């Protein structure tokens, strides 16, 4: 760890990696909270994996992979959302199809791309140490877009993720805001691909928010805690992987997974203890619940 912090003050690529982790954690905290409370992790997974098609096409035609990832993610999000709103019964089949087709298209494009190409593994598992400094501005822009839209429409988003039927009765355009929410999740997926690659995006999108959900009981607080947790886990994972020269993405995910499992066990124990205490107090006072 000490070696990492010493190196951090000396190497620009490490500083870029830390800034990347911080920028990605904003999306992971804010949109991850919606993914967890709306229980749409499978949809987010479908969006993430279909992105490879866009990245592969961008590589094939000589563009930056990231520039292919964004339109592919948004297109996948809108398609999945549209099918879910129109034909709910086919939703899981379509997500599975997009998941597989997107990856297959991506692999084919990358295999046939002319000239030297980056290793496929770096797209799948990411490499936070290789993020170009110019990408940071792109990430800043995506974060600002996310935060502005969520701040402006937080009531509509809350209505849609909490109770779609009631939101519809209140005149909220549920279809529009549901698709907007999925599009913002797609933007977040693109942010997180920089850090952990598209295979592991789902973990970073859900685990910090799920851990936050164990301890706080409002969307705003969940978003704040999940953002801080995402930043801490990403930087800690980066630091842990630096010394023994481990891949950073999987190290970050293992840390996040460990934090989630520990937190889930701890919450269970605390809940049982509280329930026992409440039952004992209720018996002693002779209280009954309404």
């Amino acid at each position, binding site marked *: 760890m000490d070696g990492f912090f010493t190196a951090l003050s000396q190497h620009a690529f490490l500083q870029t990696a830390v800034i990347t982790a911080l920028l990605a954690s904003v999306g992971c905290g804010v949109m991850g909270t919606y993914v967890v409370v709306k229980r749409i992790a499978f949809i987010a997974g479908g969006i993430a994996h279909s992105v490879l098609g866009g990245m592969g096409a961008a590589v094939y035609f000589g563009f930056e992979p990231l520039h292919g990832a964004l339109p592919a993610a948004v297109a996948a999000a809108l398609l999945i959302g549209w099918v879910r709103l129109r034909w709910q019964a086919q939703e899981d089949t379509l997500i599975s199809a997009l998941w597989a087709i997107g990856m297959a298209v991506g692999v084919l494009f990358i295999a046939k791309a002319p000239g030297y190409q980056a290793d496929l593994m770096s797209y799948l598992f990411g490499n936070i140490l290789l993020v170009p400094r110019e990408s940071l501005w792109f990430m800043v822009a995506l974060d600002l877009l996310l935060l502005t839209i969520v701040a402006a429409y937080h*009531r509509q988003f809350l209505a849609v993720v909490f109770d779609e039927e009631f*939101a519809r*009765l*209140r005149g*909220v355009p549920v279809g529009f805001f549901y698709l907007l929410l999925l599009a913002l999740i797609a933007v977040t997926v693109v942010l997180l691909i920089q850090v952990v690659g598209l295979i592991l995006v789902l973990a970073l999108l859900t685990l910090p928010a799920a851990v936050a959900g164990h301890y706080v*009981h409002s969307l705003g607080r969940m978003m704040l805690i999940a953002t801080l947790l995402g930043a801490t886990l990403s930087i800690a994972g980066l630091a842990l992987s630096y010394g023994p020269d481990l891949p950073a993405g999987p190290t970050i995910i293992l840390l996040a997974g460990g934090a989630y499992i520990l937190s889930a066990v701890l919450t269970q124990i605390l809940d049982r203890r509280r329930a026992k205490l409440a039952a004992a107090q209720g018996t002693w006072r002779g209280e009954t619940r*309404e």
Partner: protein
Amino acid sequence: MTPVIDIRGMNFSYGSVPTLSGIELQVADGEFLGIVGPNAGGKSTLLKLILGLLQPQSGNIGVLGRTPRTASRLIGYVPQYPSFPRDFPISVEQVVQLGRLGGTQNGGSRQTFLPTWVSDADRTAVQNALAEVEAGDIAKRQIGSLSGGQLQRVLLARALVGDPQILILDEPTANIDQRLEGEIFDLLKTFNARMTILVVSHDVAFISRYVSRVACVNRTLVCHQTDAVDGNVIQELYGEHVRMIAHSH
């Protein structure tokens, strides 16, 4: 006088299975209408058609002189089952605030494409609605920590906070005990002074003490004055022998 709900020759089916046929229903302003009938008889479907959540295959539905979809924000709705997960991280206060989205009959707008924030008027309306259903003391509680009766009161407050002209409740007391059932219906009786109420219930004898008319729904709809609902009407509605049990609440 123009009815607040006007349904003429309405038919609805899920797929090829007819659910409601030839429905005629006119509900007058200020009426307290009970809707009874067997399970799968089409009671909840009728409510969803009035709310604009479903579209009929044929016939017309008018609500407050508009189409159901455009009138939905002038209706307060309490569903049979909450369609949200009970562990959702949201407080009672926030749930009721959602009932203010889209404005009210007396103000606000339907421009829900525009950003909106919770105003002081919204906060006051939420406090008043919770006080009206005697749930002011649980405003800060998490929705998941409430008992069945408390949750029903919160859903009632969410329906009332938008200042509705019509209140529609789908078996609001299905999951609570008889004492609370009486308390909820006593509240509804007081609300009836300022709004039309439609309530679905299984307990014909019980709601007869509150409602002015009973609509019997079992694919078709027949309305009776409360006094005219007797054993024969019930037996005809359910299509088989119904055991009548005298009970008091």
